[in-house]
């Protein structure tokens, strides 16, 4: 079929007209809160009870923007035991003017004390006000949404897969008893 002259021009007009008749995608932000995707990285929240002041997050942080102060406290000895020591968190602060939102602290935390919160409206006119202490980080912990459900069709999470693997059967024809801890065999008396 021969090309109709001006077909391209008409196509261009049709595209813009179609867009005009469609709803625009703009979200009127201050009036309407945006719908953020799950696991949005807004701010880092702290669950203070879970923190053991192990300093792993502060040491992993590439920007050194996490400040932790703690002291040791000796708990009175329970009946028949010895006195235990535990760390008490005095200060936990993140300087969001330095933070680059890499999330390494959250990955590094072994005790589930740090979380991503989708809260993002904490911009400030003064850079010094971006240093947020643990009480503010704790307030943000309340805004952490539950994790989204697992995607259908995705491979199962590796924690579940590991737990579900059955223990291996001992191989036939092999004497399990042959494996002994070192030193459990009695040496034959040389005499």
């Amino acid at each position, binding site marked *: 079929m021969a090309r109709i002259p001006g077909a391209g*021009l008409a196509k261009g007009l049709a595209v813009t007209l179609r*867009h005009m008749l469609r709803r625009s995608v*703009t979200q009127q932000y201050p009036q309407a809160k945006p719908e953020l995707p799950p696991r949005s990285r807004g701010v880092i929240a702290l669950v203070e009870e879970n923190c053991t002041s192990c300093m792993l997050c502060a040491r992993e942080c590439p920007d050194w923007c996490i400040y932790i102060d703690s002291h040791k406290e000796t708990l009175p000895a329970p009946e028949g035991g010895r006195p235990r020591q535990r760390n008490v968190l005095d200060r936990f602060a993140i300087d969001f003017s330095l933070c680059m939102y890499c999330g390494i602290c959250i990955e590094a935390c072994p005790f589930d004390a740090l979380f991503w919160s989708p809260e993002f409206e904490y911009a400030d006119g003064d850079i010094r006000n971006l240093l947020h202490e643990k009480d503010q980080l704790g307030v943000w912990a309340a805004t952490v949404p539950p994790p989204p459900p697992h995607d259908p069709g995705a491979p199962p999470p590796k924690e579940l897969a590991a737990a579900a693997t059955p223990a291996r059967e001992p191989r036939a024809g092999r004497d399990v008893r042959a494996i002994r801890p070192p030193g459990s065999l009695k040496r034959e008396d040389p005499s």
Partner: protein
Amino acid sequence: MLDVVIRLAIIVAAFLVLPLLVGQTEHKVMAHMQSRLGPMYAGGFHGWAQLIADGVKFVQKEDIIPAAADRTIFKIAPAVALVPYLVVLIVIPVGDGLVGVDLDAGLFFVLAVMGVGVLGAIMAGWASANKYSVLGGMRAAAQLMSYELPLVLAASSVAMAAGTLSLSGILDEWQWWWLPWQALGGVVFFVAGLAELRRPPFDMPIADSEIIMGPMTEYAGIRFALFMLAEYAGIVVLGALTAVLFLGGWHGPLLPGPVWTLIKIGVLAFVVIWVRVSYPRMREDQLQRLAWVGLVPLALLQLALTGVVKVVMA
């Protein structure tokens, strides 16, 4: 006397209101064609007062004149760009007998005065003492030279068909079958008019991304606003002229005449905006090529067609 005063007052009011309407429509239509919302705050309801707010802002701005500029020419250039469109509105018939002044040579007058509007851009470009402005002014001049010819040829085809140069006279003669008969001339006239207004895709003289608004580079504040107003007034005038010459002006079923004229002007203004959003800017050589290789032969063809039909009918 009173009659004339009332007519002129209405024309001035239309001259002040219609371009603002077109400008606001452009804001909103362009935004939605680009999947945006456009102005939403000024005035409360969907930013209806955006252009008024713009105007207030422009008035408050400092009026800067470059040291090397030709001060007198620099100052009067916006007026030269704007006033011709006001003058043109005087002779455009809106309804049967609803016209400021019914000139015998109305069409001739309109085309001559519209050419003066382009002069404003050339003056501004020259007086600004800025190389980009001079480039823009020269491009505007080149565009005027090449597009005035198809514009006049297409318009003269209608004058030939009606046997008169009076705009009201043309509309008195107008029959519905002139629509297909003069369609080619209508397209040529509209495209050439678009080029004379320096609207995209024919905005090479302005080309904000390469010669930073061309003739308007050095303008600020209210003078710049006058140039913008001239652009929108130009859209209104072009729409009105195309409606009167090729779309039958006030002729139309059911609705009263002036309403039909306004509807036709509105639709044509929408097309002007639509074309602006849809097409990229044409290169300078493509621009000239379109005029001389495309539009002029088409206009001549229309002229020949009009002549043949005229002779056959007679």
